């Protein structure tokens, strides 16, 4: 594959915790604590993790809703964390985001037309009203809605239709990269299936790249080419999706996959053994020392609580952050 479209280097985002009248800082939430990955052209990259793992913060920091505390994001050869005016304008036209809940991401008091018009005006894509109307009609057709929908308001649409409008809004500026933050988790499975097909079709047609953020592992399995697993602000495993699900190497990944409720015998048999002693995700305000998973991990020993393991490429394209990675390697066991 050619050069990556987007490279994230050691991205850090801390949120200060403030108290009192003078908003004194008393600590920080380490939402994202050094995340690195790259996304290639026309690639769907999955990002999974439990709530509180920082996956949404990564998405929001990438599209510059949050300003990163540290690190660099290279997009098409430019460092977009340096917020010059020119950089931002270029970046915001190329990178768009679709949010989880279409109910709250669309303004209920504005018609679909008025919502979709904004990006066209801001980025000077169409100057006169008739052009804009034509483009909006096309956009709605792209997401398989009738152009008549532009005169409706979000309250007249179902959840699936609203999410289609949100996708149309993201497509309005002809981006090359879209961050999808749990785009279907507010929808029913039969509607989800349709939205996923739409997203896959658009990706092929316009050669888009997606960062697909989700907690639904089965969904990521069907849509993403490569997948990263996040836990407490760090990435613990990155691998081609197929590899990640058939031979997960990190104990956390195994635990996560084994916990998914499934509907068929084949899936049940394909699950790895869980390697966890139970417990819950710790607070990112006060994360455990060393490997953040060690209090829940069944392989953990002394070193795990003292030293954070480095992320290493153990097999081509398969990166893991674990002191005991050899334990889960099939070749070593034999």
């Amino acid at each position, binding site marked *: 594959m050619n050069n990556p479209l987007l490279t994230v280097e050691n991205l850090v985002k801390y949120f200060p915790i403030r108290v009192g009248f003078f908003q004194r800082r008393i600590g920080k939430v380490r939402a994202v604590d050094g995340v690195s990955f790259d996304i290639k052209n026309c690639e769907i990259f999955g990002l999974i993790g*439990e709530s509180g793992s920082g996956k949404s913060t990564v998405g929001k920091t990438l599209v510059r809703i949050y300003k990163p505390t540290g690190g660099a994001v290279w997009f098409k050869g430019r460092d977009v964390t340096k917020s010059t005016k020119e950089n931002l304008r270029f970046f915001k036209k190329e990178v768009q985001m679709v949010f989880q809940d279409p109910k709250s991401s669309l303004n209920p008091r504005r018609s679909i037309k008025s919502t979709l018009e904004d990006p066209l005006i801001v980025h000077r894509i169409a100057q006169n009203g008739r052009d804009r109307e034509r483009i909006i009609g096309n956009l709605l057709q792209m997401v398989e809605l009738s152009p008549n929908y532009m005169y409706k308001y979000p309250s007249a649409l*179902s959840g699936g239709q609203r999410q289609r409008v949100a996708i149309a809004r993201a497509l309005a500026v002809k981006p090359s990269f879209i961050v999808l933050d749990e785009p279907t988790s507010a929808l*029913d*499975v039969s509607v989800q*299936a349709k939205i996923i097909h739409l997203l896959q079709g658009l990706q092929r047609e316009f050669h888009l790249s997606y960062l697909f953020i989700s907690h639904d*592992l089965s969904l990521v*399995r069907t849509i993403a080419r490569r997948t990263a697993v996040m836990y407490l602000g760090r990435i613990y495993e990155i691998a081609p999706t197929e590899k990640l699900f058939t031979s997960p190497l990190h104990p956390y990944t195994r*635990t996560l996959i084994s*916990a998914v*409720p499934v509907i068929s015998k084949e899936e049940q048999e394909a699950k790895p053994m869980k390697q966890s002693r139970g417990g819950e995700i710790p607070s990112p305000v006060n994360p455990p020392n060393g490997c953040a998973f060690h209090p829940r991990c069944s392989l953990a020993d002394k070193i795990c609580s003292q030293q954070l393991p480095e992320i290493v490429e153990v097999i081509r394209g398969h990166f893991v952050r674990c002191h005991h990675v050899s334990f889960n390697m099939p070749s070593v066991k034999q």
Partner: protein
Amino acid sequence: MGNKYILEIRDLHVHFRVYEGISRVIDGISLYIAKGERVGLAGETGCGKTVTMKTVMGMLKIPPAIIPCGEVYLNGRDILKMSPKELLQIKGTEISVIFQDPMNALNPVFTVGEQFYDVIRFAQQRFSNGGNLFRERIRNKMIAALKEVILPDPERIANSYPLELSGGMRQRVLIAMALVNNPKLLIADEPGTALDVTIQAQILNLMTKLVEVKGISILIITHNLGVIKETTERVYIMYGGKVMETAPTNVLFRNPKHPYSQGLLSSVPRLTGGEIAEGIPGTVPDYITAPSGCRFHPRCNYAMPICAQKEPPLTMLESDHYVACYLYAKQGGQNE
């Protein structure tokens, strides 16, 4: 009759009077749960799952709700004919519910212990009027209940406010509360949906174990088919206020018969990968102008003229496997 089933719903209709007319949200469902059985009720948003739950719990506000006909027998007694006082007596002691969102189901201004105390005291009101010995006994019962749901340090948890606990711990507290008075039937509305998969797995595991040990029947209401598959023995698939198909869970997931069940199952992404189906065309109908005949026919690929005219009856395919669809009704007619 009354002895075999813990819960039996017969031809229940629940309508709502709204501005535009009458919304027929539940339009004739029948459902039964045997003693000690784990039953699932699956369906998408707006299919009437929660209204069914509320009816069974006697939580419906009448009006706006109207129940034109139907019977709901709990242990042989019709809930719909009970007085409010009788209803209060069975809640928590014969029938218990675990709500969807553990964040909102507990009162934030009272400690867990205070809320727990009320739950236990309420059930035993008739036997005591308070006093130290009584308090002591309730306290012990509460601690035992919290231990049962594998909460570490139950004393501390009893003294903390809900907001000091994590989602998984709150859900455990709710399970403990629901089970403390030894109900005969437990209803779980979307258990663990608000939680992460690893925590959800722990919770479901715990719930099914406790239910089995205590011999309680459970009705799990959810849209998550994976949860149904992993926790129940028999399942009802609901759509548009009606039961479309019911069968033992393994049978239904291996061999769904109703076009809706088939569409639903093929839409679920698999952990083993592979393309997912196109979903089901169209959207859920509204209940005021619900489609005539089979409520699924406007979205059904196999719809026949008769589907729009007459409501399909539940047809038995094999023992315990019933489908409400004319594709199978015809076959059945020929066989008989």
